[in-house]
């Protein structure tokens, strides 16, 4: 009886493995920190047009969308993922430093500006989000609306503004960009002023959006997708693209980034997916979705629910340097904020 059971189990395991081997030929494994409601339709569209099955692993905001980065690092010796589609760029640069990414020069990558792609071709930027000020219109009238990052340090708004924790996500990347632009001295001065003005640090951009929408804070710094979600919910909020004066800093764009994993199990399908994702049509799809992702390919129509982003004054940053000073920025932040 025991022998028979063992034999059946062994057969089942072999069958299970064989069937999975067969299905592996036409699939691509994608790890993504892009919100599921944005990425899933894109995967379905890709499956329909390319007859390649997408097996996705999604991240969650509850663990600051860093779970998959840790998974990729842990799987480094025996990679399981083919593609990493990140909702921002900082963590992709970190993965590049850890030599987890492989080079691929997609024909669709060449179309975009050099700042949005890696010289070594390990990653390419696409469909960006902008860092914007979300303002509660019940609490602030039009003439007083804060329209730059300095407003967060204005005593007029003492205790009324909120920012997400810069240890994570797009806020971390944004703060690093500011550190690179301003230099240590000015950046630290700004941090001290934020602290003096009792700016609240919240767990994430979603909480900034929620607490400004509910009126707990008058305004906050968040991403366009969160701000658009608040508008869709009917919250009394307005989106402000900060620092649009001629001498202003400009609005900071954070592109999504996509990369092939080194020694990926399905490299051909992975390349096909990246070509598809970087295609102008896909960026247009992403722009027309709920997230209002801003296309980086030239001549692609921007989101309907945002002002013409082609005319925006943007913060001039070198994205490649964002990983380099991330830890130094955090060290400064911690020193100032915990004292």
């Amino acid at each position, binding site marked *: 009886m025991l022998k028979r059971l063992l034999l059946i189990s062994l057969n089942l395991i072999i069958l299970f493995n064989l069937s999975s081997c067969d299905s592996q030929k036409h699939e691509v494994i994608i790890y993504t920190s892009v919100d599921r409601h944005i990425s899933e339709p894109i995967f379905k569209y890709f499956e329909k047009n390319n007859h390649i099955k997408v097996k996705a692993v999604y991240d969650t905001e509850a663990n600051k969308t860093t*779970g*998959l980065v840790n*998974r990729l690092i842990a799987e480094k010796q025996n990679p399981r993922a083919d593609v990493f589609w990140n909702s921002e760029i900082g963590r992709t640069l970190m993965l590049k430093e850890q030599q987890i990414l492989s080079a691929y020069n997609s024909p669709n990558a060449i179309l975009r500006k050099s700042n949005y792609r890696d010289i070594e071709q390990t990653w390419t930027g696409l469909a960006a989000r902008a860092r914007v000020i979300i303002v509660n219109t019940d609490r602030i009238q039009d003439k007083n609306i804060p329209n730059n990052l300095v407003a967060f340090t204005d005593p007029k708004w003492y205790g009324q503004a909120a920012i997400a924790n810069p240890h994570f996500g797009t806020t971390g990347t944004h703060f690093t960009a500011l550190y690179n632009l301003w230099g240590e001295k000015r950046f630290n001065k700004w941090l001290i002023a934020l602290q003096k003005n009792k700016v609240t640090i919240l767990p994430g951009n979603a909480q900034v959006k929620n607490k400004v929408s509910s009126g707990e804070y008058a305004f906050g710094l968040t991403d366009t997708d969160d701000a658009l979600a608040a508008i869709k919910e009917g919250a009394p909020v307005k989106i402000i693209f900060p620092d649009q004066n001629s001498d202003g800093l400009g609005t900071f764009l954070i592109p999504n980034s996509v990369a092939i994993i080194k020694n990926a199990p399905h490299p051909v399908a992975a390349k096909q997916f990246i070509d598809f994702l970087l295609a102008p049509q896909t960026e247009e799809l992403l722009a027309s979705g709920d997230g209002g992702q801003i296309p980086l390919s030239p001549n692609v129509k921007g989101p309907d629910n945002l002002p013409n982003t082609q005319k925006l004054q943007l913060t001039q940053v070198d994205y490649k340097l964002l990983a380099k000073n991330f830890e130094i920025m955090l060290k400064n932040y911690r020193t100032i904020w915990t004292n």
Partner: protein
Amino acid sequence: MPDSRQTLAIFSILTFSIMAILPILFLVATVFFNHFLAPTNISFTELQLLFLNSFFFSSNVTFFTLFLGMGLAWIFTRTTLRHSFIWLGLFCLPLFIPINILANIWSHFLGNHTGLNALLLKWLPSTEPLLNFSPWFSASLVQIMSFYPISLLIFYAAFLRWEQHWSEACYFSSYYKKLHRIVLWRYYRNYLGISALLIFVFSFSDFAVADMFQLHVYATEVFLQLSAYSNLSGALILSLPIILMGIIYLFFIYHWLEHIPLSNGYGNNRQITLKILSPVQTTTLYLLFLFLIGMIIVLPISYLLITIDSWTNMGQLIQLVWQDIILSLFLSFIATTICLLLSLALAYSISRKLKPMGIWIRLFLLFLFILPSSLIGIAYIHFWNQPYFPDFIYQQGWILPFALSLIFLPIAVEIFLLQFKKLPIVEEQAAHLCGISFYKSLRLAILLRLTPVIKIVSLICFIFCFNELTISLLISPPGLSILPVRLFSMVHYGSQSLIASLSLLQLLVLIIPVFFLYRYNLSLIKKSQEKKGL
């Protein structure tokens, strides 16, 4: 008999080694060889302050949690209060709500311009928030409300297992009161010790609540090391002080458990004297319960119900996630079964001293309990994601239920150990002398008497496995969609209404099967009583 017992011990230790010891040791070795003593981005003074701050925070939470849990358990078991089982069920409801969701609800409720303050601002002529709750207070409140059902259930079981003849034995002594106090203390200190350890560690290692209220504690620092800096070594090093503290604490519990003078009798039906409540006391208790239920249960659930704008959303949501629900229930069921079988076997082996390594296994279990679940997930990836292992083990997700079962295994072992220590071995020996096989005597003489505890452990384990997010995220196979991951990814972009619908759905998904199991269990008891002619 000894052969079967030894086989059980060897099998359980081997399984535990493969499931937990080897992956964790592999991770420690990898970190040791690759990044030995990597900096933790935090100064020693800052670390000391953080540790002390977290220690006081968790001690505070532990004290109030034990007080609440023990008090309620005493009322349910030692007074003539009617419908105590229904009250128990109601008071256990917070167990079903994931702590992140509870924190989200309470952060909204205690906010400066929302919830309670919004209500007051409507009534009172003021523009400034009237109540200002500190992060320390809010986080403590949420943790107490989330963890007290654990101490309630443990003490409920403890009070139920107390036997009247232990009290009566003290009557014959001339210093009855003193003796009775000693007996009571010797019996309850084990339950107190285990509950305090569990709740303290839960509170100390909880990241979600502290993060929601932006309270910088030790757990957030461990999380930062791993998530912000990707510093695995830093996260492991930071786990060491709490492990050391746990080991010292465990030493006391171990010492206490070695000196249990009380063994449960067999067939002793003597009823425990219950405190007869006067009508005034009953009314006061009902009022107190209504206040507590209102605050702990009704308030968050009503908040969810009010926040749901449209019930059609709920239908659409169920349509979207029903497959995830089935898969998650199935996975949690498998994980609970694994956890239950292994914890019973391990606890039995340790309590009967079948192998001289009992204390080491308990220490390792404590280590496992304290280790953040993200590190357990990463340890599993390091160990099981090897090119020379068959592909299906890691890639097809066969290890997922094993990893999930580890979350609750340490608690289950400690609870069963406590029970096994109090079951006299003479019945097993008698069964052996009568020629009854070991497994049959285990089933009829031991497990039967542990049924209430087994049910409680299964319930809590099932809930923990079902709500576990980090491990599912780290090792779930590509293409597999599990409810917690789906829900927490929706929470990010969703409106308050959607979040409320999701939370309610998760609550219902857990409560409905548990309710049916409870009804089934009642019918079984009824049938068995009818058979006996009672």
